């Protein structure tokens, strides 16, 4: 997650020539290291870098079966189409909205949960709650969406039953068929699945806060809430900032699975994300070029955001990410 930071360690070699010599000599002595790593790196390049070649499809009217170089080149046609296409702008809006909702809800709930759990004094209780809380993280979205669909079901879903017993609603609501609830449902599903997992990092940061800070605050007459506000929260601030900035890079990663699995024809205008767009236009309808263009757009945005975030992090004096 956070620290991919490197502390460069200068070794020997003063003059460039002497360095080159020692480079070759060092390489010779490292045959085993090279044999152990280079094939794996080649594998990584094959699966992660080679496909970038396929980006050229976005500038063609790609038709399967025709040799690659004989495809018709059309320039930025598909990008132009994309940005004037109501369907694409719609999935773009949904993607950004859902990822922002997930991000804000995710951060707030995880921090709140960590702060409250940190106040629990009985060790076994704290442990048990934490164990239970990150259990859903390990379940697939298939299972989680199944659970969500069950809970929201009109026929005996627990949410409808509870809300009716509490007198908040009169009759069962078809939650999954209400377009305007969809973003919220996705957000809450994410919280349910990830709140405990996301809190791990904050709990770890809290555990490393110097206890004497709490003692000093106590001597100064701080109550529980003042200690949370002035000791605990500032203690986890650096990690919150790093994660927040890093998350900006995933702004177009609203996910695919939840929306694909929970969405239906009624809520389609609110549920579809860029990933679903790519799948639909690209692989299912066969407009490979448009699908590729949408994929490129996504990657370009995330790379830009990551570098911007990295710069911001540097300005703020936080640890760099890359």
């Amino acid at each position, binding site marked *: 997650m956070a620290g*991919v930071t490197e502390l460069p360690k200068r070794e020997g070699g003063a003059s460039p020539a002497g360095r080159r010599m020692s480079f070759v000599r060092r*390489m010779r002595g490292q045959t085993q290291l090279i044999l152990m790593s280079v094939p794996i*790196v080649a594998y990584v390049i094959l699966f992660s870098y080679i496909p970038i070649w396929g980006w050229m499809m976005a500038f063609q009217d790609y038709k399967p079966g025709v040799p690659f170089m004989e495809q018709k080149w059309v320039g930025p046609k598909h990008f132009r189409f994309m940005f004037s296409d109501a369907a694409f702008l719609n999935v773009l809006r949904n993607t950004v909205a859902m990822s922002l909702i997930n991000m804000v809800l995710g951060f707030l709930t995880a921090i709140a949960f960590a702060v409250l759990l940190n106040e629990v004094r009985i060790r076994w209780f704290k442990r048990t709650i934490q164990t239970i809380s990150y259990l859903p993280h390990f379940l697939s979205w298939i*299972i989680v969406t199944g659970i969500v669909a069950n809970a929201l079901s009109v026929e005996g879903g627990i949410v409808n039953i509870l809300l009716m017993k509490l007198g908040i609603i009169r009759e069962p609501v078809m939650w999954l068929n209400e377009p305007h609830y969809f973003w919220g449902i996705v957000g809450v599903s994410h919280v349910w699945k990830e709140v405990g997992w996301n809190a791990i990092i904050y709990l770890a940061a809290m555990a490393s806060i110097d206890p004497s800070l709490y003692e000093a605050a106590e001597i100064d007459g701080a109550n529980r809430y003042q200690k949370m506000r002035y000791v605990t929260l500032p203690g986890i601030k650096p990690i919150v900032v790093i994660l927040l900035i890093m998350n900006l890079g995933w702004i177009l990663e609203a996910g695919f699975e939840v929306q694909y699995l929970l969405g239906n024809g009624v809520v389609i205008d609110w549920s579809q994300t860029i990933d679903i767009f790519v799948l639909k236009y690209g692989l299912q309808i066969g407009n490979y070029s448009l*699908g590729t263009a949408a994929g490129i757009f996504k990657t370009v945005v995330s790379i830009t955001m990551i570098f911007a975030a990295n710069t911001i992090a540097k300005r703020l004096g936080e640890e760099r990410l890359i």
Partner: protein
Amino acid sequence: MRKRMPQLEPIVFHTLNTAAMLLLAVVTLYPFLNTLAVSFNAGNDTIRGGIYLWPRVWSLQNYKAVFVSGTIYNAFWISVARTVIATLISLFLTSMLAYTVSRREYVFRKPITIIVVLTMYFNAGLIPYYFLIKDLHLLNKFLVYIIPGLISAFNMIVIRTYMQQLPDGLIESAKIDGAGDFRTFLYIVLPLCQPVLATVALFIAVGQWNSWFDTFLFASSKQHLSTLQYELMKLLSSTMVQSTSAAAMYGADPSARLNQVTPVSIRAAITIVASVPILVVYPFLQKYFVHGLQLGGMKD
């Protein structure tokens, strides 16, 4: 009044806090217990509603249907096979790569780290990737579950960071004893990395076990390559449109116990079958992964 406040406040706070934590536990656990109850309840009775934490009409028909159905039985073993095989290979290759970049003297340490780490931040996109898989002739083959995605940058960094914290003297003394890097890696470093390896193994295995998108994209036309999660996915989408044909699809014996098995009840049973392996394994690995994640993922 003012004097009693300081004594009262902690009690009120801890009561409310405990209640909040218990509520969270209930909200997390209830859906499982409910699904468990439904999976052991006769399907035709579940339709009447009112099953919460305990089955009303006990029945093993749902599980019978799951395991009698050749489809699910086969999918279960495909899931097991891909999880075991990919986890072993991936763990070995990832830690080997991590070992090389943990060696400070290694000349290609920096470029390799950069090449691998960059993959965390971009991908070529679904369509170019699909064509790659197709060109490699992996479509509709079991190997499509194993070969792509063996190396994850995040896992590599987690392992590398752990390895860097091992005392340098260990490796030095192995070298002095004449061990090459491969032997040092295999016999000295790997055994010492148990906690972080357990963590990463859990990550890989869970990812494999839960994966359905690769089946959907690359192997959906081959029934014998279907996985448990993918079967569950198909069932989920069919029950969400309230189709009853799904029961006929999976219910082993439609003539005999006609309504003992319904889409809802069989889905509950598959959900349990799909989540039990994870629920069984993870409490044991928990002590490792919290520790491993703190050491590896973050360095402050």
